[in-house]
């Protein structure tokens, strides 16, 4: 009998190991980025509208900001644009754009034509910074807290639902300046 029980025993042992694997996993929620809870990657990139200036991550410390990855080649970004303008009008969190692998003159034309929701737009022609942020496709939006920690990531176009359910509660739970 014991000979025939052996496979079951080995399998159950394996199941325990797999179980431990799940146990160690965060309790709930879908982790969409390994950056969550970690400091936002550092960057220093030319400003789209003032090419002589640099947009630097160190200058952004001390307040909440939304880091939005976009490009003129991205259809979804155009769909997202109105939402971004509403976010800007709400005036609660500044938007920092990352113009990803894009043509700078086209990007400027895009913002002139559709309106500029961003406080500043960093130009990432090579895509190096986007790699640091683990960007998979555009648009993607990261919420960074005043201590420079990424607290939320949204993949795809920002929506009213995401804004009111995910972003607003996080920002209003700890108002700007009181981190």
């Amino acid at each position, binding site marked *: 009998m014991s000979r025939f029980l052996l*496979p*079951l025993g080995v399998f159950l042992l394996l*199941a325990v*190991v*797999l179980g431990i694997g*799940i146990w160690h996993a965060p309790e709930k929620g879908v982790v969409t980025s390994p950056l969550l809870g970690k400091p936002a990657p550092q960057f220093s990139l030319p400003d789209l509208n003032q090419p002589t200036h640099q947009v630097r991550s160190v200058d952004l410390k001390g307040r909440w900001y939304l880091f939005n990855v976009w490009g003129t080649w991205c259809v*979804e970004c155009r769909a997202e644009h109105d939402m971004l303008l509403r976010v800007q009008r709400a005036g609660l969190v500044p938007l920092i754009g990352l113009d990803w692998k894009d043509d700078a003159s086209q990007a400027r034309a895009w913002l002139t034509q559709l309106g500029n929701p961003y406080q500043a737009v960093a130009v990432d022609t090579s895509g190096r910074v986007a790699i640091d942020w683990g960007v998979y*496709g555009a648009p993607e939006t990261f919420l960074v807290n005043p201590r420079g920690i990424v607290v939320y990531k949204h993949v795809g*176009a920002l*929506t009213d639902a995401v804004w009111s359910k995910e972003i607003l509660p996080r920002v209003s739970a700890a108002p700007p300046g009181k981190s």
Partner: protein
Amino acid sequence: MLPELGHFALILALLLAALQAFFGVAGAARGNERWMAAVTTAVAGQAVMVATAVACLMASFVGNDFSVAYVAENSNSALPLFYRVAALWGAHEGSLLLWIFLLAMWTVAVAFGARRLPPRLSARVLGVLGLVSFGFLLFTLATSNPFLRLDPAAADGRDLNPILQDPGLAVHPPILYTGYVGFSVAFAFACAAMLEGRLDQNWARWTRPWTVTAWSFLTCGIALGSFWAYYELGWGGFWFWDPVENASFMPWLVGTALIHSLAVTDKRGLFKSWTLLLAILAFSLSLLGTFLVRSGVLVSVHSFAADPQRGIFILAFLIIMIGGALGLYAWRAPQLRSNAGFELGARESFLLFNNILLVIAAGTVFAGTLAPLIADALKLGALSVGPPYFNPTFLMSVLPLLALLSLGIHANWKRGRLQDKQRTLLYTLIAAAVLACGLAFGLYGRGRLLTAVGATLGVWIILASLVDPVDRWRRGLSLSRGVVGMTVAHVGLGLAVIALTTVQSFTVERDVALSPGASVAAAGYEFRFQGVRAVEGPNYSAIAATVVVTHHGAAVAVLQPQKRQYWVQRQVTSETAIRMYRGDNILLALGEDLGAGRWSVRVQIRPLVSLVWLAAFIMACGGALAASDRRYRAAKAAVPVAQGAVTEPGA
């Protein structure tokens, strides 16, 4: 409306699967004929519902309905129609649906074939298949629903992963999955036999064609995957011991053991419990493979953590299905003793070694694949296992396996008198060694010890497999499809061994930087770089290089490898240019722009690499031939079960 219809059809399929499982298992247990009769109806209903769900999702893909989250994630309006269809199984949710669909198709086929079976056995087999289907449907509906809507709808999709935009993707997963899923039939037969508490040679005869068919599909699927990796990933390798590849290779190894063990059970009524265990194991590994790969558990240990709900469901399902089957095995297998014996040196003992060595091979692959997961679970830190582990450990069990094949194929059932065949064996071995070494050193002029060993074993397998069938054919004796199929499959294996040995021993690789007009020489070929130009595709832009290839001054080809940038995901993929020339496989990949018109270019010449895939295809054809043998179809004619009476050579 269509996505909702598909969702609804999937829910109905779940209910029908539950009925199929209940009526099948309970009906057979209670001997209730009306319940058992209802099983077939449930099978048909479930198949229709699942097909409806697949059609609905496909319609959403073809019609660019980006209000469906799964479509928005994996398609794009610029994506060509062909890939919009293939994108259906481009990610987790759709692959699960494909799995369920193929399971439904296999179940329908079994239901047709099972009309010849005793009603109880067929009800149990279909019942177990219903249980498997129920688990998958529940998993899909609860955690991986492909029909979820996006509100508001996306303006356009995020596109299919560029490396999956390839004709290989369209055919590789369905064929591979057909193989994976096919092992569920062997599993269901095993469970049914254990539930019955009875396993005779007829059972093995009914199970064999299904298992061999599944094995053939799996063989094709793995070869296609390897081929796709070779030309799409641009690294030039054809096997990386990647967890995803291993996940398909482990069921193949155990499945190979299973079809051999089934042959012994069929012919001699032996190895009963061993056959059952292998059937459970082959399916368990398919299940593990499908889940682990698709949930990303093995690719990155941390993505298991990404969705604990999914992980817990997977684990629960594995414990119920595999744990249940193994529990049943521990309970029932001891009763399935067979009293026939065999001598050392008889064919049975060679097939036993075949089984043991294949299971050891699968075990080493399993250990290497799961090592990172286990190390992480036990907090031993990150651990990475690669070719330095896999290559030698795998060879250790496979080399003796190949050597024993040529011996075992000449052994008789039951009695161990290999002496009669001594001369045949010796002559074929000498011929093989001379031929192999002559070719290796004559054609390529160099090689290692392993080159000679590998090539000799490969040629020996081919010669040894052909001796008996050719002899019978010359004497005008009939050859059953089973024997022909077996011979073809073994010849395929021999060819695969030769091809793998040649590729491993004689591959030439060069990574060079070339300016326009410059050239590089490798293995008798000359590659002249003509420069690059821009190319526009339907949903990507690309840079194509032009390289003129000559062999000792004779023109071979003009190759145009590309580097593509897909618009939506901004991912760069390398489209290699591949050309066959006199058995050599020339691969060219475009690397980085080094400035001033200079580009890095990777040149590889792999002799006989195409033969690896061709050999796998030959093996699959052999399997298909063997599965179509008449004796499986005539099984109804109540063959008297004569223990050990069958001594027909071959087969």
